[in-house]
């Protein structure tokens, strides 16, 4: 079998998962897309391992071993990820990624020109309050 088939399939699956990660709004869908990307890598690993085990008489089978490890780690990842998503959902009432914008830059602060007269007035208002 041509190695190109699994390799191209892997690349396309990876990019599909990439699109999902970047485009999906729901965090769980993003996790699904991450799974797709991981599986694309797994396919790559397996295909190359099979090829090398024949072509280079490689007996270590590192590709398959890494695939197994990846699957295990992916399982752990999905567990932790879902726990985080659930925590966020409980705290924020949403699991939409683009609503979690705590790191966003706030509205543009007043320039130095407007700050001079504005600040004392604000302080005065605070003091009187």
């Amino acid at each position, binding site marked *: 079998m041509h190695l*190109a088939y699994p390799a191209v399939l892997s690349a396309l699956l990876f990019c*599909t998962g990439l699109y999902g990660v970047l485009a999906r709004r*729901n965090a769980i869908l993003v996790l699904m897309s991450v799974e797709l990307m991981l599986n694309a890598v797994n396919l790559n690993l397996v295909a190359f391992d099979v090829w090398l085990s024949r072509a280079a008489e490689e007996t270590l089978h590192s590709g*398959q071993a890494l*695939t*197994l490890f990846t699957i295990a780690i992916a399982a752990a990842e999905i567990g932790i990820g879902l726990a985080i998503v659930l925590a966020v959902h*409980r705290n924020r009432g949403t699991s939409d990624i683009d609503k979690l914008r705590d790191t966003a830059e706030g509205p543009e602060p007043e320039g130095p020109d407007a700050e001079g007269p504005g600040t004392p007035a604000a302080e005065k208002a605070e003091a009187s309050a």
Partner: protein
Amino acid sequence: MNLAAAVHLASAPPVPHAQHGFLSPTGVEIAFLLVGLVTLGAALVTVTTRQLVHAALWLVVALGGLAVEYLLLTAEFIAWVQVLIYVGSVVVLLLFGLMLTKAPIGRSPDADSGNRWAALAVAVAAAVALVWVVVDAFRTTWIDLDGPAAGTTEVTGTFLFRHWVLPFEALSVLLLAALVGAIVLSRKARADADTTPAVHGKEGAR
């Protein structure tokens, strides 16, 4: 331009299988291609569908298709592990997650964020680059699938417990840590939600 030279694999001498053309596929290749198309289609539907639960179900199809691909590549143990863990547990976990986050059943119009077109551009660019590189590098490489299978359970057990024991054990520790972490995350969040609802309500409203 010859990317094969660039992406040179040290232990892989060029195998003289140039007689295997792309226009005369073997049966395995045909099967691989068909299953691969199904897998890719399912994956595409997974990342584009507006019904969240359907996305999880299409993911099952895609992951199952991958398991079949593993089988076709003679890696049978991996294929069963794939079916067991991904299709059996991960997707179930995801479905639970959807359920617990009160994901809407049916079409949700806002499944995709405003970042969609940038994401599409990036993904297409990455796909073009990757496919181009991969095809250019491996268009003549041939996997010889004849002979003993490369990934039977016996072979897998042999290399796993002969060469990879220590990472395997380390992985078990990692899994344990992940288990504990998941539990801690879930419980702590609940405790927070109980004690300081006002703060969270305010933050949630933001």
